[in-house]
């Protein structure tokens, strides 16, 4: 049963008071190694606070794990009753008795049978206890509870003297002892047993707040030893007594730069394309029915797909119901549960107090060693305690999970009408990534929107996306952002259609214009061709006429030259008859 809690108090290295490990998980951490060896420890608390069980576990663990036989001397219950009572905790007292590892001695005191007639001492008790110790060579003794003597023996002064002698005697015997005592008014025990026990006093307490009981343990005094001074919650269940030293966790933990997918590729894209950091704490908030659980399921599905162990705490649904619901959107978690990768724990928040929840979660984590933890939803812790309490509890839980490098996802319900950022149990500053889900009512329907409110250390999209649940899980869509604001759902589809229509019209219009231009161009070209032809014709005619005239002129010139030549001889006698002819 010893569990590794390296991050808690380390046993003192100095040789001082020798410790006797109680074997009770957690108690040895907060007491720096156990109870003071060969001394007497007082365990006090109210009725039903677990004193007897603590004592019995001390003996059983001593016998089973440390080879130290024990003696239980009880004044209120007999051996059979005790064995029956603790069988439910997995302790086999009868087996230990048969093995000679344990002696249970029931001291029956009947007040009505006893008459006190002068001086006496409790040597009978001493002899009896000594006999029991010697029978098994006991190293551990539990006396439960000595206070019964006060009721039986009227002479308190004798009794007190004898108790003093008893504790000295126990010390001389070399046994480590626990005595239990009923909590008294204004004092630790009803009969002031703490006066005699100066070494170690442990106070057990069961407090009821809002009808929810929480068990707590506190080391009120531990002479000669450092010890955790806080009140620590403890569990009493089928595994016995477990103290949870949670407040010993500090903010010193290593961080990872590794990323893990959210299970939704498009959501990964919004988170720098990679998803959450491993070991980070993410929060999904939203109103009822906004899809928080579905998003977590998608994340879990992806985590299990990577072979990571996942612990899923359900506070509002039974696992079967949860898995059925998730199947409707195509997420089959049953296969992971069957493979042992996914473990559920479903409980109502009001089942225990916050401390108990915390203790429980921590122990489940210790046992299952998951890489991913989901709490769905944390807002329900409101019903198990006040807001500051649940905030503290979650803070401690986050610290614990971070110290284990467990990637954690919380969901939180936002009450309708509240500011979306307000109701996150005041843990918003503690978480690393925060997805906000919103329902948008528009155009007579409700659509789901998602955006990233924050993501520490990650470039993240500032877009609001619409997300839809399909038969194959969750898909993200771009929302329509237009002149009329954002449009989603049918309005978005309608708008998209309208856009397409307008687009088509525009294209058709443009095509038409192109045609006109083409036609005009063709008309222009035709005209140009016509003109060209006309021009060519005219040009031809002109050229022809030019040629003709030139030819004519040439002819005339040659004619004249001939005349001139012929007349040259005549010219001396007849002046220029050709001149008249040239001008015709």
């Amino acid at each position, binding site marked *: 049963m010893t569990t590794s809690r390296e991050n808690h108090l380390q046993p003192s290295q100095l040789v001082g008071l020798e410790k006797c490990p109680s074997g009770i998980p957690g108690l040895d951490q907060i007491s720096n190694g156990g109870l003071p060896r060969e001394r007497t420890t007082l365990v006090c608390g109210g009725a039903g606070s677990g004193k007897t069980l603590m004592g019995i576990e001390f003996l059983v663990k001593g016998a089973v794990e440390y080879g130290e036989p024990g003696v239980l001397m009880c004044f209120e219950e007999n051996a059979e009753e005790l064995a029956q009572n603790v069988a439910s905790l997995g302790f086999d007292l009868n087996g230990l008795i048969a093995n000679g590892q344990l002696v249970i001695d029931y001291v029956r005191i009947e007040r009505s049978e*006893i*008459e006190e007639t002068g001086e*006496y001492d409790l040597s*009978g008790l001493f002899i009896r206890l*000594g006999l029991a110790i010697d029978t098994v060579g006991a190293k551990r003794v539990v006396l439960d509870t000595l206070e019964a003597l006060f009721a039986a*023996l009227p002479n308190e002064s004798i009794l007190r003297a004898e108790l003093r002698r008893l504790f000295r005697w126990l010390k001389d015997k070399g046994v480590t002892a626990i005595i239990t005592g009923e909590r008294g008014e204004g004092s630790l025990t009803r009969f002031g047993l703490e006066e005699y026990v100066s070494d170690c006093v442990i106070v057990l307490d069961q407090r009821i707040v809002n009808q929810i009981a929480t068990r707590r343990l506190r080391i009120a005094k531990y002479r000669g030893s450092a010890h955790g001074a806080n009140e620590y919650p403890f569990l009493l269940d089928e595994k016995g007594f477990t103290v949870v030293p949670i407040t010993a966790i500090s903010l010193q933990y290593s961080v990872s730069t590794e990323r893990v997918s959210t299970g939704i590729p498009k959501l990964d894209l919004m988170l720098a394309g990679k998803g959450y950091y491993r070991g980070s704490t993410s929060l999904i908030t939203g109103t009822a029915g906004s899809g928080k659980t579905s998003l977590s399921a998608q994340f879990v599905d992806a985590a299990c797909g990577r072979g990571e162990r996942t612990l899923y705490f359900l506070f509002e649904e039974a696992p079967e119901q949860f898995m059925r619901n998730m199947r409707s959107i195509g997420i089959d978690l049953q296969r992971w549960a069957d493979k042992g990768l996914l473990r559920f724990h479903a409980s109502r928040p009001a089942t225990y107090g916050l401390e108990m929840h915390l203790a429980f979660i921590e122990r489940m984590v210790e046992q299952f060693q998951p890489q991913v933890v989901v709490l769905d939803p944390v807002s329900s812790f409101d019903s198990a305690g006040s807001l500051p309490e649940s905030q503290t509890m979650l803070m401690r839980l986050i610290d614990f999970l971070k110290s284990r490098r467990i990637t954690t996802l919380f969901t939180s319900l936002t009450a309708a009408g509240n500011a979306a950022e307000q109701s996150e149990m005041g843990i918003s500053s503690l978480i690393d990534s925060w997805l906000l889900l919103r329902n948008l009512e528009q155009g007579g329907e409700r659509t789901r929107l998602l955006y990233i409110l924050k993501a520490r250390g990650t470039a993240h999209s500032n877009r609001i996306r619409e997300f839809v649940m399909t038969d194959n899980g969750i898909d993200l869509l771009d929302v329509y952002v237009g002149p009329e604001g954002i449009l989603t759902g049918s309005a978005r589809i309608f708008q998209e259609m309208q856009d397409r229509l307008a687009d088509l019209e525009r294209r058709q219009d443009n095509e038409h214009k192109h045609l006109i231009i083409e036609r005009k161009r063709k008309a222009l070209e035709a005209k140009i061709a016509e003109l060209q032809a006309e021009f060519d014709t005219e040009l031809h005619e002109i050229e022809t006429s030019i040629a003709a005239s030139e030819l004519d002129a040439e002819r005339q010139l040659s004619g004249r030259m001939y005349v001139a030549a012929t007349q040259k001889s005549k010219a001396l006698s007849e002046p220029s008859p050709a001149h008249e002819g040239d001008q015709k």
Partner: protein
Amino acid sequence: MTNNPENTDEKAETAEKQRAEWDLRLYVAGQTSHSLVAFNNLKKLCEEHLQGRYHIEVIDLLVNPKLSRDDQILAVPTLVRKLPEPIRKIIGDLSDTERVLVGLQLRLAK
């Protein structure tokens, strides 16, 4: 195992026990002053009130520690009235005679 200061032999003791209406046992832890005082007080009282009708057995728990469990003895000295029934336990050195008589139901409580 019994430590009978009367020093009677076994037979005589058994015979006396059978006759006795009052079977008394005195549990002590060694020969302490308390036990001696108690025995003397008891002897005196019995002679006075129960002459011839009583048997006293003194049991030293140091000699026979198991009886501290079997007979549920815490305080010493303890006087146990085995007979007549019901069993009564009287603790202390029996110096308060009044209370011893009340405890043995030889006298009604005031």
